């Protein structure tokens, strides 16, 4: 065989600096280069570079390695581009090239830190998952899952700003050392509502050092219960013990977290958390919800009462009376139905007594909170064995935004340091006129990873580190001490962490970033360790587990009704909205929270769980109200009736016609002017089912900046700087409508129609099931059949079309010419169940999948067309019992996550002409991207529409720039390569023209299988015998039961998804779930034999309730 000796030009020493210019515009900066050197002090990890960065699964390494890019080209371009392997010079401990390293950390936030496990490859975090060891394990929600993307966000703040102009570390250093050394400085610190022991300690030190120091706490949508429960005290539901739960507009499973819901969801499963028991309705909890608009909690509720926000106090008061708590409020319930509802509810609560829990929305009025507390006290349900627990944090003694404003106005402080994740200049209540107050400050320092409105309003802006880059500590909901440790040195060298900044103030004002001088321990870490203040062993343990039980957690106080409670309740304003005095709720948004996630593409593209709206916010309104207000000339129905030949009334039926606002890319919602608190906001309107009449819901957090590409021409050069490419031109800013008095909801709003329309991108246009029993539900307490739960369960498989569909019989045996069957793997046969009974419909799985499988975002226009790429999508159906006469408009909500079903008899496979998608021995429906030519036939033939096609080079061309995708090769690339650092190296990054879909996270499966084989070898060698004398049984190669978790399953905060190996039998949770009577196949009628099956949702109604017989029946008695 001939050997070609190819002489390559030696790489010049300065090559490195030269060709940095060749990669990405954005990271082509001195800082980034420096970072590279610092991140890998002795040179980079193994590097290589072949093809275009974009399409490579090793983008990151390529990026690193591109220091030597092009060296080989020209010489051997005709053969194959020259590639280099650049090993460490000194290999760091623990890092094995090509293997993931996992670290425990946590995401600090107001409702308590989220314990996490972070996956890193060669030092770059790519994925976060929940930390199951943690006592406060609560899964992860969409925000936690998406947080990793912010680390690499191209709109991250990188530079110090002084008066909005770029500045340097040195100048800032000078500025703060001046302040730090002025002991009499009138300085105020604004923290977030999260609880960080070290920060608390430093704050104390600073307080001791500066005589005039003040401390504040501010997050736009967080309200603490000081006035109701006492300082630092909060009530946390104890769902293990809560049999009956009443939510007074408290979206505890969604945007208003109250602690871990795992126990709550486990008790939604009649077979128990692990599906190991016989179905038993009595073990289930029962959730009553009183709310105005559909929340995920309302969706889970067994009994849901929809009332306008201004009436909730009245309802609560009535409940209190029925329960027997003595409170006085001049409000009475007139509606007989409601009264009955309330009375039965009260009876049920009283019956369960201490095993009950009444939760109240954290942003609700004090009056309501007092009433709720009164009820809880009456029920005596607060305590270790009871439905609720009270905890007291020492993290107290802070002023709020109002006091901050007045202190600024009164010059009580002239220097203020913002460390809050919120954006006060943007989101403070309008009546405070905060931006004017901040202007009065001599020095204002804003530390954030986004240079937002506040950044430009302050004198100084400090680029802050991401929580995955910084040392800190935090406390989870019940006060468990949790560490926050960095996975990576700050991506951009100027970034300062909160603690580092505080240390500077506490000390002599010297700001030390990242590692200490000459590689000594990072000061921030030292500070955290000092707070921790335990033995080295315990410290190591804490770092390993992500928490430490050695440090004391919250104490448990005694709670009682506040002295002023009675008065507060008396003053409670009770009113009833009408069509010209509407109620407005300023809602927390499921995608941007209070606006802090505006620049996160994954969250922006994740549809709102209720409205299915992406990339925007809109005012939600009940169909009837919309009609009354003349926004639509007919009532928008769930399954609209239309006539076949135009003449109304002739051949009326459900023909799935297009909605009056259009469909897909043509959908344009009418714009209306909402006037409240004397301010007016123009925004699009969406009809929302199950919402209280005469109530408007406006999600907050949008409309932070617009450039001249805005559809409504709201371009504003100044504000456009506040957001990045993702956040610009997004939605409508409702904060100006909001005053401190009406921070949650306001009354007396009016609306005015305009002729204008605004295009909205919905991922789901049709809300009903059209009689198809797709997402099924049953009732534990089927009134019509004498509460026969068994009867209901037996009927699950026979709902809808399946009631009369014949069983499918295959004509031929599934085997090859040697008689070998197809699903031949004797070790593993993968399958999944999704339990609709605990699935609430949040987007955690969807975002987790996106970060695990390198799924690109596609932007608003593409979503509107129907080209979103989510491998698992969240279908959300509204359904109602056909003769519901209690409240027919109170439709029930059933979510249904749909990914690839891995059908054993997959229609997609047979139609592919090039064998790009075929079945594997272990029952996966494999997709070979590099074989796919993109005929898209498979997707047509997929009944579940689980396949996604790369219509453009979404990974290469930036979909967010207007019209960019249509420019093809001329289009702009993603600005910078930082987003490629997040990519999972074990999943191919798909190019345009390729079909893709869920594969049960096959990369995780393969890794586990190989790990098992490796383990086998160890055993063999340790046995001391010759390897050939060892018998390796098939069983020995089977991976441990339920040891592989798919990304969606891992993320799920409701543990609704189980995944496992069918051959493990009932040892596997998944198989036990499949054995449940609730288990059914979606579209069983086609006979695709899906490996993913669903468990019907179980509603657990109270048969005394007036609406009981309509609960959990909507897919049985379909309209």
């Amino acid at each position, binding site marked *: 065989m001939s050997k070609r000796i190819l002489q390559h030009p030696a790489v010049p020493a300065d090559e490195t600096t030269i060709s940095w210019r060749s990669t990405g515009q954005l990271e082509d900066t001195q800082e980034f280069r420096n970072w590279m050197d610092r991140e890998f002090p002795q040179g980079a990890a193994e590097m290589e570079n072949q093809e275009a960065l974009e399409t490579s699964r090793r983008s990151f390494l390529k990026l690193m390695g591109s220091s030597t890019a092009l060296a080989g080209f020209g010489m051997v371009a005709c053969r194959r581009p020259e590639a280099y*392997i650049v090993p460490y*010079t000194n290999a760091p401990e623990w890092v094995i*090239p090509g293997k993931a390293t996992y670290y425990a950390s946590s995401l600090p936030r107001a409702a308590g830190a989220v314990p996490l496990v972070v996956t890193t490859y060669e030092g770059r975090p790519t994925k976060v998952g929940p930390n199951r060891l943690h006592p406060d394990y609560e899964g992860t929600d969409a925000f936690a899952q998406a947080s990793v993307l912010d680390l690499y966000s191209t709109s991250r703040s990188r530079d110090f700003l002084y008066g909005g102009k770029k500045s340097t570390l040195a100048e800032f250093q000078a500025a703060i050392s001046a302040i730090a050394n002025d002991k009499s400085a009138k300085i105020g610190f604004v923290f977030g509502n999260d609880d960080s022991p070290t920060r608390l300690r430093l704050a104390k030190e600073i307080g001791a050092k500066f005589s005039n120091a003040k401390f504040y706490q501010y997050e736009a949508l967080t309200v603490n219960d000081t006035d109701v429960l006492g300082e630092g005290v909060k009530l946390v539901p104890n769902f293990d013990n809560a049999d009956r739960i009443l939510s007074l507009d408290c979206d505890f499973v969604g945007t208003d977290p109250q602690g871990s819901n795992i126990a709550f969801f486990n008790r939604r499963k009649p077979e128990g958390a692990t599906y190991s028991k016989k179905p038993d309705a009595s073990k289930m909890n029962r959730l009553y919800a009183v709310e105005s608009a559909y929340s995920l909690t309302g969706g889970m509720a067994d009994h849901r009462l929809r009332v306008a926000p201004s009436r909730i106090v009245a309802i609560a008061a009535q409940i209190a009376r029925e329960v027997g708590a003595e409170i006085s409020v001049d409000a009475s319930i007139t509606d007989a139905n409601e009264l009955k509802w309330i009375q039965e509810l009260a009876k049920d609560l009283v019956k369960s007594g201490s095993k009950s829990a009444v939760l109240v929305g954290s942003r609700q009025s004090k009056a309501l909170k007092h009433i709720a507390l009164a009820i809880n006290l009456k029920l005596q349900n607060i305590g270790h064995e009871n439905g609720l627990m009270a905890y007291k944090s020492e993290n107290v003694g802070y002023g709020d935004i109002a006091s901050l404003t007045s202190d600024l106005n009164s010059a009580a402080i002239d220097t203020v340091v913002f460390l809050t994740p919120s954006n006060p200049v943007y989101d403070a209540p309008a009546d405070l006129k905060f931006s004017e107050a901040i202007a009065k400050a001599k020095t204002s320092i804003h530390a954030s990873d986004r240079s937002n409105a506040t950044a430009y309003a302050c004198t100084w802006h400090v680029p802050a580190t991401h929580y995955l880059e910084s040392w800190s500590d935090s406390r989870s909901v019940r006060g468990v001490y949790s560490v926050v440790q960095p996975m990576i040195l700050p991506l951009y060298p100027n970034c300062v962490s909160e603690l580092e900044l505080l240390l500077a103030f506490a000390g002599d004002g010297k700001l030390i970033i990242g590692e200490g001088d000459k590689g000594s321990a990072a000061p921030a870490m030292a500070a955290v360790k000092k707070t921790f203040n335990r033995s080295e062993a315990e410290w190591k343990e804490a770092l390993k587990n992500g928490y430490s039980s050695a440090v004391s957690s919250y104490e448990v106080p005694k709670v009682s009704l506040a002295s002023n409670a009675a008065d507060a309740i008396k003053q409670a304003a009770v009113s009833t909205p009408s069509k010209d005095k509407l109620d407005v709720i300023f809602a927390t948004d499921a995608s941007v929270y209070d606006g802090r996630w505006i620049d996160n593409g994954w969250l922006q593209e994740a549809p709102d769980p209720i409205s299915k709206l992406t990339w925007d916010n809109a005012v939600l309104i009940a169909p009837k109200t919309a009609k009354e207000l003349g926004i639509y000339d007919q009532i928008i129905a769930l399954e609209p009736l239309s006539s076949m030949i135009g003449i109304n009334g002739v051949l009326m039926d459900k023909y799935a016609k297009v909605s009056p606002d259009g469909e897909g890319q043509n959908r344009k919602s009418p714009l209306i002017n909402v006037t409240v608190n004397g301010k007016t906001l123009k925004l699009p309107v969406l009809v929302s089912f199950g919402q209280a009449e005469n109530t408007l819901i406006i999600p907050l957090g949008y409309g932070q900046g617009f450039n001249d590409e805005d559809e409504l021409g709201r371009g504003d050069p100044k504000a456009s700087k506040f957001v990045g490419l993702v956040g610009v031109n997004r939605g409508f800013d409702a904060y100006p409508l909001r005053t401190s008095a009406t921070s949650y909801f306001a009354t007396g709003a009016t609306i005015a129609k305009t002729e204008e329309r605004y295009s909205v991108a919905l991922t789901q246009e049709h809300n009903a099931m059209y009689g198809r029993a797709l997402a099924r539900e049953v009732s534990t307490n089927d009134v019509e059949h004498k509460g026969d739960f068994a009867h209901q369960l037996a009927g699950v498989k026979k709902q809808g079309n399946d009631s009369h569909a014949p069983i499918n019989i295959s004509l031929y045996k599934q085997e090859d010419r040697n008689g070998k069957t197809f699903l031949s*793997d004797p070790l593993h046969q993968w399958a999944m169940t999704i339990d609709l009974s605990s699935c609430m419909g949040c987007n955690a799985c969807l975002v987790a999948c996106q970060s695990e499988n390198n799924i690109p975002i596609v932007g608003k226009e593409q979503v509107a067309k129907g080209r979103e790429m989510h491998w698992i999508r969240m279908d959300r159906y509204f359904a109602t019992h056909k003769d519901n006469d209690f409240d027919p408009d109170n439709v029930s909500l059933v979510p249904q996550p749909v990914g690839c079903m891995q059908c054993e008899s997959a229609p997609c496979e047979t139609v592919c002409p090039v064998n790009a998608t075929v*079945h594997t021995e272990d029952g996966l429906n494999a997709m070979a991207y*590099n074989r796919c030519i993109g005929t898209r036939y498979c997707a047509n033939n997929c009944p579940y529409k689980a396949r996604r096609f790369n219509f453009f080079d979404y990974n290469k061309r930036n979909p967010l720039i207007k019209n960019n995708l249509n420019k093809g090769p001329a289009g702009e690339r993603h600005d910078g390569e930082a987003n490629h650092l997040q990519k999972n190296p074990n999943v191919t990054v798909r190019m345009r023209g390729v079909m893709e879909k869920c594969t049960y996270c096959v990369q995780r499966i393969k890794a586990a299988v190989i790990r098992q084989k490796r383990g086998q070898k160890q055993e063999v060698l340790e046995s001391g015998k010759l390897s050939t004398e060892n018998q390796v*049984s098939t069983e020995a190669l089977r991976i441990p039961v339920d040891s592989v978790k798919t990304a969606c399953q891992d993320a799920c905060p409701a543990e609704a998804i189980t995944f496992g190996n069918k051959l493990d039998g009932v040892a596997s949770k998944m198989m036990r779930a499949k054995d449940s009577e609730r288990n059914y196949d979606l579209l069983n009628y086609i006979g695709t034999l899906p490996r993913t099956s669903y468990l019907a949702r179980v509603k657990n109604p109270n048969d005394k309730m007036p609406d009981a017989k309509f609960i959990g029946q909507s897919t049985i008695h379909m309209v």
Partner: protein
Amino acid sequence: MANIFPRWSNLLPFQIAFCLGAVGTGVVLAFGYYATPKAQVVGYQPSQPIPFSHKIHVEQLGLDCRYCHSFVDVSGHSNVPSGNTCWNCHQHVQKESPKLEPLHRSMNVNYEKYDGKPIEWVRVHKAPDYVYFDHSAHVNRGISCQSCHGDVNKMEVIYQAEPHSMGWCLECHRAPEKHLRPLEEVFNFHYGDADVAKYAKPEDGVKTTLDLGEKLKEQFSVKPKTSCATCHH
């Protein structure tokens, strides 16, 4: 009227047809050769910054593969040794050799041209980005380095010995016995029928490495898959 075409034109069509045929076949053959990975990569032997000789280190010094490629049986990725691996020995051995200049550059702090920058080895073996080859999965199941990388122990300068095309992978995934070895022999480049005796008795009919391979295939229950997701995800 006269003939528009001269007499010789009667043969023209056949001549043309013949030429086209010849050219066509030629093109096909050429494509067939150059389009296959064999032509592209087998024998690819770039010059390395340091003329490292596997022959000397493996054959003469008898170093085990894992001394340098330390993670080959742990990670999917077989690592190239870090600078300090080389330096361990070469700060003592052969330290004057001019060939080692790049090593001094990156490791020897006393060297005047020291810059601490890593050595940039030229990559020889490369699986396409959409292929997920896992070294540990093979090495730990009795597939030798030799099977894919050839007689590295005889290579003065490393080169690619096998096509590493999908077809080539499939050959072994369909008949692994040809390559299966006792786990002890995975890193032994001289493994041959002579070694078989150590592991099996001839009277059992196990004489050649192939026989042993057959035996091990059963014994280790090696069932390589040929479905897409085995290597592509």
